[in-house]
């Protein structure tokens, strides 16, 4: 059974801290890994990763994939209160058009 495990499940930091969110997966035939940010409503897409070792970056957020060790990390530097959200990791198996989601990491950034 395909599985995605995120850690930690929740995290509380102060503004300015750097955080690393983890996502490990087991999937029969891997195609891609995706990160989403979810504030009060719908998840919004952050990154899609398909190849090992290539960092994707957007502002203070970056992510990288390790297909050998079957995990990805999402880094957020110089956190701001607006980064408070649930961060979701999902994996797409090849040949399936469905995503397998992790339970999410709830990040709270305090001023």
């Amino acid at each position, binding site marked *: 059974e395909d599985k995605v495990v995120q850690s930690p499940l929740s995290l509380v930091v102060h503004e300015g801290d750097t955080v690393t969110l983890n996502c490990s997966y087991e999937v029969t035939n891997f195609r891609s890994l995706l990160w989403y940010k979810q504030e009060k409503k719908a998840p*919004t897409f952050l990154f899609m990763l398909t190849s090992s070792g290539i960092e994707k970056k957007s502002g203070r957020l970056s992510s990288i994939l390790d297909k050998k060790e079957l995990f990805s990390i999402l880094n957020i530097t110089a956190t701001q209160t607006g980064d408070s959200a649930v961060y979701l990791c999902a994996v797409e198996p090849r040949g399936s058009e469905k995503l397998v989601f*992790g*339970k999410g990491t709830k990040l709270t950034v305090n001023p």
Partner: protein
Amino acid sequence: DVKVTQSSRYLVKRTGEKVFLECVQDMDHENMFWYRQDPGLGLRLIYFSYDVKMKEKGDIPEGYSVSREKKERFSLILESASTNQTSMYLCASIPRGLTYEQYFGPGTRLTVT
């Protein structure tokens, strides 16, 4: 911009009622999904449709059914609502073959009393 809309943001229903949640997308996407999201459990797939009148069960289909009579509309039906179906329901859509970015609707928070 892709737009996925859901019929209600908040809904309160009584146990035993039949509940319809509707999702409409305006980008001619083939694939549509219904998820429910609960604290500590993440997003769980209820049903998936890859074309009109086509559907596939997700991880937790029990107690739910779906209808896809038109390409743009995907309905989730709770035949007899129960309190354990109180949840946030999210609809998503994507063109076939491009699963890398599912477009989500705003969600419906359903409370069954």
